[in-house]
């Protein structure tokens, strides 16, 4: 199973995972943690420093060593 970097932390994902599956697994973890949850409409995804548009989450396969950043909007000055 491939290792990727997600927001700076190593994570092992199932083989042949897509960005869609990664986001879905984070949604599941957020639900399990019982917090505010994860609003995927408020996310932007970057793989290896290139933005992955929402419309291509399913088509974009993740591979060993991919560096993924998933960001959202927070308060700031």
């Amino acid at each position, binding site marked *: 199973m491939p290792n990727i970097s997600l927001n700076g932390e190593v994570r092992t994902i199932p083989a042949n995972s897509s960005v869609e599956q990664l986001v879905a697994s984070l949604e599941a973890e957020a639900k399990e*943690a019982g917090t505010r949850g994860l609003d995927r409409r408020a*996310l932007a995804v970057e793989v290896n420093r290139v933005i992955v548009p929402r419309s291509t989450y399913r088509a974009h396969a993740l591979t060993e060593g991919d560096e993924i950043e998933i*960001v959202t*909007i927070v*308060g*700031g000055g």
Partner: protein
Amino acid sequence: MNSTPTPPTPQTVTPAPITLGDRTFHSRLFVGTGKYKDPETMVAALDASGCEVVTVAIRRVDWKSGHDPVMAHLDRKRYTILPNTAGCFEAEDAIRVARLGRELGLGDWVKLEVLGDKKTLLPDPVGTLEATKTLVAEGFTVLAYTSDDPVMALRLQDAGATSVMPAGSPIGSGQGINNRHSLRIILETLTVPVIIDAGVGTASDVTIAMELGAEGVLLNTGIAGAKDPVAMAHAMRHALAAGYFAHRAGRIEKRLYATASSPLEGVLGE
């Protein structure tokens, strides 16, 4: 930048609108959304400030502990959301954050910060200039945070920044306007709108910035960190108007010695 001073008419109670790029705003106060003790205070403070542009930051999502969804509290019809690149120390990172902001649906506007030092949070001029050029080429409307260096401000204008935003003093320091002389030179030299960004501690700092001739002021901590943020937001709004009108009214020259306000002739006992 230097308009001929015209005194305000009694009917004039609010400063004229400000145009940045293709947008015009009725308020010249730009307010950050960070560091409020709760969303309700933020919403009330933004309302009291009268601002129409608010800044936000972009951060790695914390899916386990969650975030307060700042956007859920902001009325998109009322406020223009200006993402910043705060915390970026490399031009490349700031460029990535700007692109992520666009992907998040925040449009092509960005408050560009490329920082050079963690302790002072002073901008890195080389990185800021590099990022400005790239983002302008990519169609972004760049509002560039910079120091009070007049030459650097000019370079950012030449690079295509829509607004140049020199710091009054270090971010969040509350020191106010530290170098009026440099800011005056920037204001005299530049043709793009200059917005004083950072360092504002209290209302009089905003007035000073506007008296110097700034087109607007951007602040966050000065309101969010006040004991009563809503009251301070109200004060900042009026302080901005005071400085705006004072600048256009044309102040008297400073003199070393007194000049009597009442006639010197005909005083009893002469």
